[in-house]
Every structure is written in structure tokens, then in C-alpha cells.
């Protein structure tokens, strides 16, 4: 369905938008259930499920024991047999306990069975640093899942997309992982009423520009937009692409922009090496857009270290606006 027809000027937080999407799904589709740790009376570690248990009952908003492998596997088995579970990992770091069920089962069972089943499970992954929770509660592991055929992986950066991508994930017959940045939960933005979907596999151009292309993911989109505003003051017009979907990646939107700007900067929070930016860079470098490149493809990613606790170190471990400004300036002023 399409939102445009029914848009009202209304702002919600990113967390509220996700909750609204789940509320719509629970209200309109009996097969939808929520599973996760402390998503019931507690409302979720980040208060995303909030009061849904009171609206839809404990049979549909299910607190699991602290059993990530089993919990995820139960969601996979339920999805194979008629339910549409939305499974919340309390922190995406804990998905390290469930990789077996996500990667060996959910992602592969349809293929291994020659198409005899689908696994319509949605997994929500609160990710990212900035909360002072240190190395085991701050990772950005989306690149791992982007490497796994059979999975779809999205990373909404706005409340509108957080709702639209979750509803799209629920309409999708295959496993979809949604990486939600913890620091975005409280950010607010316009959110259409009622049901609508944001297409999986489609990037969004958040700002147009002729001088360079910045492809960013999740919270980095906002840092890139902040940088772009400052760059404009120096007469540098950066085009900002919000990738939105990690797998399948929107090749055309990225290549088309690079063909126009001839310069590319990738900005992401995950560890730089083998992070999302590596694929974006390689995808461009192997394409015809390579011929349009006027400068090296730059990447700003997370530091080659675990996320430290100390706030100054934690900040230093991921790209910040000044880093984006420096990289963009060096690119824009580079040879043509």
C-alpha cells in the first residue's frame, strides 16, 4: 500500500514508529507475535515494545527466557509453520549466540528444501555505540549478515523508514533483519498514519549534490547531512545517499550518483575493515562507474578496536562530523 495518500503532519520518535508498526501488525494479522527478553511488562530494554503486551496480551507479546539461540530458533520454527514472529534481540551483540539459527537455518532452509518452505521471520537488532555500555553492548555487526544469502538486512535511519521497513519486512516471506541504532530511538520525525511500506532494497537520496557522493548508513546519515550543510558553506555540494538496505544493496542508486559526481565517500559505524563501505567501494570499483571516478574511493568506518568504555575513547572509535568534513574536502579538492 502507499502512504502518500494518507500522510498527516505528525511526528513520532523512532521507537514510537517501530511500536506503531508492530501495533498495526498485531492488530491486523493474527499470525504476528512478538518474542524477546523483557519485551512484556518491562516494555523492552529500550522501551520499544512499550505497552504492547497490555494491548495484545502475553500470548502474543512473549517474554522469553535468556536463551538467544533457542529463542531465535523457536521463532524460525514458528515462522516455518504459520506464524510471523518478530524477534527482538535485546542488543544485537547477543545475536552472536544465535548465528547458528539465523545463518544455518533461517537463511538456508528454503534453499536446502528446494523451495518447500519460507521463513517469514523478522529480527530486530538494537545496535551501535554511544551509550557507554562498552565492547559487548556496542557492536555494529550488520556486515556479517549482509554476507549471508537468504537473509535481507535493513538499517532505517528515520522514524518514517523504521515503521515502513518493519511493515515491509512483515510482508516479506523471507527472513529480514532490522538493525536499529540505539541512539536513534529517541530521535523524532514525521511518520505517516496507518499502514504503509518502505521498499526493501531501495536507497534514498537525502540531499542532492554535484561534487561528491556520500553513502552513509543508519546514524551516519545524520552526521553526513550535518557535514553536508557545512560543506555547502564552502561551496561543496555533497549528495547524501541513505543506503537503508544492506542486502540486497541498491546498486543503481549508488552507481548513478557516482557517475554524476565522480567522487565517493562511504561512512559507516561498523569496523572499517570488511564493513559495509568495503562492499560499496568494491561494487563501484568493479562497475562502469569506475570510469567516472576522479579520485580514490574513501571510507570512514569504525576503528580497528573493540568499543571502549571511556566516553572520549568511545567517540574517537567511530566517525564524527569533523572526520566527514576532512574526508569530503580532501576528496572534493582532489585531482579531477
Amino acid at each position: 500500500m502507499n502512504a502518500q495518500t494518507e500522510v498527516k503532519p505528525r511526528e513520532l520518535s523512532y521507537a514510537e514508529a517501530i511500536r506503531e508498526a508492530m501495533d498495526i501488525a498485531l492488530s491486523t494479522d493474527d499470525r504476528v507475535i512478538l518474542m524477546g527478553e523483557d519485551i512484556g511488562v518491562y516494555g523492552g530494554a529500550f522501551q520499544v515494545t512499550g505497552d504492547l503486551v497490555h494491548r495484545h496480551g502475553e500470548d502474543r507479546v512473549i517474554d522469553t527466557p535468556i536463551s538467544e539461540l533457542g529463542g531465535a530458533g523457536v521463532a524460525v520454527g514458528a515462522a516455518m509453520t504459520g506464524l510471523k514472529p518478530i524477534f527482538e534481540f535485546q542488543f544485537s551483540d547477543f545475536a552472536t549466540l544465535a548465528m547458528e539459527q539465523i545463518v544455518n537455518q533461517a537463511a538456508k532452509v528454503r534453499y536446502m528444501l528446494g523451495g518447500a518452505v519460507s521463513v517469514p521471520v523478522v529480527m530486530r537488532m538494537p545496535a551501535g555505540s554511544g551509550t557507554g555500555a562498552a565492547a559487548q553492548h556496542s557492536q555494529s555487526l550488520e556486515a556479517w549478515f549482509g554476507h549471508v544469502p537468504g537473509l535481507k538486512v535493513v538499517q532505517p535511519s528515520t522514524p518514517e523508514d523504521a515503521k515502513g521497513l518493519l511493515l515491509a519486512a512483515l510482508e516479506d516471506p523471507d527472513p529480514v533483519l532490522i538493525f536499529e541504532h540505539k541512539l536513534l530511538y529517541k530521535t523524532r520525525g514525521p511518520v505517516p498514519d496507518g499502514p504503509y511500506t518502505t521498499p526493501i532494497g531501495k536507497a534514498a537520496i537525502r540531499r542532492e549534490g554535484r561534487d561528491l557522493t556520500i553513502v552513509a548508513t543508519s546514524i551516519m546519515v545524520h552526521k553526513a547531512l550535518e557535514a553536508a550543510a557545512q560543506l555547502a558553506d564552502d561551496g561543496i555540494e555533497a549528495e547524501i545517499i541513505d543506503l537503508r538496505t544492506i542486502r540486497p544493496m541498491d546498486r543503481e542508486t549508488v552507481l548513478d550518483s557516482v557517475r554524476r559526481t565522480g567522487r565517493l565517500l562511504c561512512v559507516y559505524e561498523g569496523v572499517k575493515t570488511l564493513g559495509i563501505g568495503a562492499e560499496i567501494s568494491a561494487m563501484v570499483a568493479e562497475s562502469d562507474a569506475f570510469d567516472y571516478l576522479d579520485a580514490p574511493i574513501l571510507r570512514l568506518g569504525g576503528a580497528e578496536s573493540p568499543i571502549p568504555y571511556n566516553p572520549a575513547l568511545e567517540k574517537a572509535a567511530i566517525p564524527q562530523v569533523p572526520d566527514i568534513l576532512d574526508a569530503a574536502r580532501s576528496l572534493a579538492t582532489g585531482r579531477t
Partner: protein
Amino acid sequence: MPDASADNIPYAIRAYGPDRLRDALRKMHLIRKFEEGAEDSYMRGLIHGTMHLSIGQEASAVGACMALTDADKITSTHRGHGHCVAKGADVERMFAEFFGKETGYCRGRGGSMHIADVEKGNLGANGIVGGGLPIAVGAALSAKRLGTGAVTVCFFGDGANNEGAFHEALNMAAIWTLPVVFVCENNRYGMSTSTERSTAVKSIADRAAAYSMPGASVDGNDFSAVAEAVDTAVTRARDGNGPSLIESLTYRWRGHSKSDRNRYRSKEEISDWMAQDPIPRMARMLVDHGVLTTAEADALDQDAADEIARAIEAARSQTDPNTMDLLRDVYTGDAA
């Protein structure tokens, strides 16, 4: 436990009519001949990869499925051929899968370790030890929420009982009172590692107490004993009284897989168990109780041999997948 002496009518004789008993013996012969045919095909180079044969465990597979209809589910293991036949699969399509044919149960994509028959309620073998345990609990969660009345039988081995997935799955099944029956086929070894060396409890059934569910240990080579224990557990599950754990004590005659040198067990141990062959035991019980004549019982053996020979011949000549279809069924709707 009932025994087969004439002065004490075994459970199976009391519980089932002659047709079902004949069919059960037929399936046991069919599994044995299937495994021998698969082994022979492997030796003749018709089968790629490896396989895990369940020769010697036929009473366990067939006995455990007596209480199930096609609406009920099973999750199987890497040693799953017997479960698949017991749940009603077509042996020709099974061989077609082994031969990697487009006509196989998995269109040749899965092979022995992923063979499934979703129409008949077999959610599939699994290449991951313990992988099916949470999935079975998920299938039971679907049955309970959707009110289908279906029960799931989860097959797994003694080795699998030391995986964390076992603990998490049984705990969740118990706290949510789900209709699932955990059938641990204890054939005394996980590959080369005996239960004495791997498992800190004498009887795996005793682990049921850690989940406040009934646990029973039965002679897995006694069809009637297995059927009685699982029937009781299935009834309990259907009545909404939750899960049970049944340990079926049996033995695999062959090596773990095609690469096994049997260095970890003695010839005597193997021959002692071969003397406990569940198939003649079953036949004797049926003859002793006048369900079949010896001639009829022998005929079932021969019929199974013929059926397998025909299935192998038919499957061999079927069509191979087209390599252009490599990406088919990675995602739903990717059908070529």
C-alpha cells in the same frame, strides 16, 4: 515394559489394528532396504557427499511416528532417512534427492542431510546437531497459537543432548506447556564419543527433571515399547499438558558416516546389538499374536526390496537441475 511373549499382550497389539501393524512392519523393512540401497548406491558412486545410516534403529523411527497424523510435525536429524520413511515419504523422491535430481524432495539442493517432506509434516533432517530442537518448539508454538491440535515429535541423538540448544529448547517447551515430544535416540555414541565420555548423567531421560517434564527410557529396538511411550507423550501433549522427553535406547550397526573406521567400539559390541535386530523382533511379535503369518511377514521383506530396487532405477534416470537455476529459491519468488 511389555514383552512379546504370548501370555502377555504387548501394547502395540492392544493399541493398533492389524493393518497399522502390518504397515509398521512394512515401513521397518522399507527403511532397512532403503538404507542398504543407499549404501550400495554410494559404493557405486551414484551418491555425492556423505550419509548417515540408521540401520538397526528402525523400531525407534517407526514406533515414534505411530501416534502421528500428516498434520503432526517431526523435526529430524542428519540420521534421518528412517524418520522420513516412517512419516510417510515416497522412497523414489528420496532417492531422487540423493542422486541430486530436480525431482527429489529438495530439488537436489539438499541431499541426505536436508531431506524433508513438508506435506507429510517432516520439517526436515538437519546438518546441525541439535539444530532441530528449537525449531520443533517453534512448530509446537504455532500449533498452540493457531489451535491446530498438531503435535511435534523432535528427534535428536545422545550427542545432541549436550548442546546448549537442548537445554534452551526443553526449558521453553516446558514453561510454555507446548505440544512437543522430545525423542532422544540414544545409540550410545555421538560419532566416536560414547555417552559415558560425553554425558554427565547415566540416563538422558533423567534430564527431564531439570525441566519438570516426564522422562522415560525405553528399549528402542522394541517397537511396542517405543510406540507406547510416544503414544502416551503425544496424548499428553494433545491434551494440553505439555512436553515429554523419551530416551529410545538403540544402536547403529554401521559407522557414523562413510568415513568411520569404528576404532571406538568393539566387534563384539556390534554383533551383540545386531542380535537385537528390531525387525525380526517386530515380525515375531506380529506372528506370535496372529497378526501375520510368517509367510506374510517374509513377503513384506521381499516387497520392500522390490520397491527400493524400482525406486533406485526410476530415480537414477530423472532429470538433473539446470545450473542456470543456481539462485532459484534463495529467496521466495526466485523460482526460475
